[in-house]
C-alpha cells in the first residue's frame, strides 16, 4: 500500500507518524511546497531572530529516515488525476493508493489592495513569508500590519523585537478581539506599546494607495492617511485548494469531508486547515491522525471538534481563552484579578460557557473539559475559582484518570 500526503504541516506530519505506527511496511511519501518543515506558530520567533530555521521545526532531524518516509520537498502540486490516482507535481507525477490532502491555508488580502504578490505586501503563514518579512523589514520605516488577531500580533511582536515600530490597524475596538475580552487585551496592548508598537483601532481601511507597484500609504475612514512602505496582511486565511480547480474533489470553502475525513472521491482524505474545520494546531493533529487511521483501514471518526480555544504568550504573559470571551444574554460573569493575574468565568445555569485566564495559567487544563463537554458544575459545592479536576475525579484500572460526572 502506498500513502501519499500533500503537506508537511501539523496534519500531514501527524498523519505520516500514525500511518507508520499502524503499518510498518507501507510506503509513505510526503510532498510539500516547503523545503523545510516548520511550525507556523513559531514564525514570529524566526522573524525576531530568537530561533533559526532549524529552531522552528517541530520534528526531529531524523524524522524522515527513522519513519522510512520519502519526502519530496520544494515541489508544488499542480493537480490530482483522480481517475488514474496520480498527484501531478512540477516535472512529474506521484502515484498513490491512498491520498491525504493537508495543504493548509493561505493568507488572504484586502479586496481593495493589490495581491500578496506586490513587492511590499506580505502574508504570514509560511517560512517563506517569514523570511521575506525579515529581509524586507531591514529597510522599511513605516510598517503597517492590518489585523490585530493572533497572526497580526505575532508579526507586531516579532518586528518590535528587531527595532521596528509597526502600526497595527483593526476594525475592532480592541486587539485580539476573537480571543480576549477588552481587559485582557488591554494588558497586552500596553506591553506592545512599550515595545514600540502603536495601534489604530475601530477604524476601517478606505484605500490602499499604490505608487509604481508598491504600497505607499493607507487611507482610513474619515480620510486619515498613514504612510506605509511595508504592509503585512493579517486579516485571515482561506484553505489552499487552488490546485484542485477543475478537479472532481468537492469543495465548499475548504475541501468537503465527512466524519471519517474522507472526501467525495474514494481513497482521498483531507485534514487540517484545508478542510476549514478549525485553525487550531491540536485539532489539525487529530484530523491528521483520524484520516491516517482510515487510510490504514482502521475506521476512526473526528469527534473532538471543539475549536473555540486558544492560548497565547506575549512578553512573558500567558493567556488561555475558551468558549465565549464576552457574556451573552442569560450569562453571568465572575471575575477575580490582581495586578498581574486575571480570571474571568462566564456561566450559564450550571455550565461554564466561557473562560479567560491571563497571567497565571497553572493547572488550568481542566477548564477546557468543562467548557467543551458542557459539564454541570453545580454539584461541586465550591467557588468557581476553586474548581479543579478533584471535583470530577476518577481513576481507571490502568491508572489513567477519568472524569466522573
Amino acid at each position, binding site marked *: 500500500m502506498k500513502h501519499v500526503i500533500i503537506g508537511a504541516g*501539523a496534519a500531514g506530519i*501527524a498523519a505520516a507518524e500514525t500511518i507508520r505506527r499502524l503499518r510498518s511496511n507501507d510506503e509513505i511519501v510526503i510532498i510539500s511546497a516547503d523545503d523545510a518543515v516548520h*511550525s*507556523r*506558530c*513559531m514564525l514570529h*520567533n524566526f522573524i525576531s531572530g530568537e*530561533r533559526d530555521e532549524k529552531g522552528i*521545526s*517541530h*520534528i*526531529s532531524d531524523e524524522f524522515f529516515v527513522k519513519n522510512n518516509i520519502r519526502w519530496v520537498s520544494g515541489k508544488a502540486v499542480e493537480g490530482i488525476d483522480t481517475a488514474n490516482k496520480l498527484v501531478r507535481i512540477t516535472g512529474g507525477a506521484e502515484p498513490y493508493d491512498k491520498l491525504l490532502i493537508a495543504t493548509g491555508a493561505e493568507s488572504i488580502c484586502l479586496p481593495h489592495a493589490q495581491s500578496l504578490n506586490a513587492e511590499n505586501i506580505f502574508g504570514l503563514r509560511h517560512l517563506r513569508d517569514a523570511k521575506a518579512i525579515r529581509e524586507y523589514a531591514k529597510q522599511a520605516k513605516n510598517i503597517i500590519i492590518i489585523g490585530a488577531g493572533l497572526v497580526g500580533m505575532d508579526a507586531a511582536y516579532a518586528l518590535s523585537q528587531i527595532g521596528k515600530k509597526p502600526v497595527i490597524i483593526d476594525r475592532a475596538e480592541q486587539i485580539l478581539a476573537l480571543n480576549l475580552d477588552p481587559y485582557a487585551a488591554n494588558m497586552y496592548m500596553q506591553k506592545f506599546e512599550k515595545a514600540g508598537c502603536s495601534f489604530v483601532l475601530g477604524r476601517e481601511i478606505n484605500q490602499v494607495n499604490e505608487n509604481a507597484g508598491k504600497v505607499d500609504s493607507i487611507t482610513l475612514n474619515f480620510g486619515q492617511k498613514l504612510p506605509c512602505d511595508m504592509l503585512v496582511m493579517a486579516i485571515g486565511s482561506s484553505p489552499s485548494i487552488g490546485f484542485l480547480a477543475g478537479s472532481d474533489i468537492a469543495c465548499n470553502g475548504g475541501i468537503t469531508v465527512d466524519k471519517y475525513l474522507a472526501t467525495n472521491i474514494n481513497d482521498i482524505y483531507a485534514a487540517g486547515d484545508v478542510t476549514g474545520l478549525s485553525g487550531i*494546531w*491540536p485539532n489539525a*493533529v*487529530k484530523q491528521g*491522525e483520524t484520516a491516517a487511521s482510515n487510510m490504514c483501514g482502521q475506521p476512526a471518526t473526528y469527534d473532538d471538534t471543539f475549536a473555540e*480555544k*486558544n*492560548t*497565547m*504568550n506575549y512578553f*512573558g*504573559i*500567558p493567556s*488561555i481563552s*475558551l468558549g465565549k470571551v464576552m457574556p451573552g444574554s442569560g450569562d453571568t460573569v465572575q471575575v477575580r484579578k490582581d495586578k498581574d493575574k486575571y480570571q474571568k468565568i462566564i456561566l450559564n445555569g450550571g455550565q461554564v460557557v466561557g473562560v479567560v485566564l491571563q497571567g497565571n*495559567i*497553572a*493547572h*488550568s*487544563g*481542566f*477548564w*477546557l*473539559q468543562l467548557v467543551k463537554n458542557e459539564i454541570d458544575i453545580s454539584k*461541586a*459545592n*465550591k467557588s468557581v475559582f476553586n474548581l*479543579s*479536576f*478533584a*471535583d470530577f*475525579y476518577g*481513576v481507571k484500572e*490502568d*491508572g*489513567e*484518570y477519568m*472524569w466522573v460526572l
Partner: protein
Amino acid sequence: MKRIMVDAQNCKGCKNCSIACMQSHRKDNPGGFHSLDLADPANESRNLILLNGNDEYKPLFCRHCAQPECVKACMSGAMEKDSKTGYVRHNAAKCASCFMCVMSCPYGVIKPDRATNSYIVKCDFCQQDGDDPCCVKACRSGAIYVKEVQQ
C-alpha cells in the same frame, strides 16, 4: 510501561510526595531535605494534592497518558511520548512557551514554570535515579505506588 498508580482513598494529604518532588528537581546544589527552599519558585513540585468540595484529598500526578493530549497539542516538538519507556518527556530547550499543552491536559496537571513562564514543569519519573520516582519512595500511606501497565 511503568505508571505511578494513585489510590486517593489512602491519601492523608501530608504532601510528602510534593516535597520529595521538589527535592528531586531542585536546581541548587542538592543538600538534604532540610536545606530545600520551599519558597523558591525554581523548586516547584510536579505533583500536587487537590481538595474536592467535600475536603477529600485527590492526588494529581501526570499519567503519561496512552493518548497524551499535551503531545498532540505541542507545536514545537518539545513534548514527546517515548515509544520505549512510555513516558511523556518535555524538552525545555525546544519549548516555544505557547502553552497549548497546559490548555489541553484534561486533568490540569501540567503548568508553566513559575519562575520564568517559559517552559513546562511536568513529571519525568525521576529518570535520572533509575529507581522508583522520589514521590513514591516518600509516600507513607500507600496512596501512590508504581505498577507495570499495558499500553
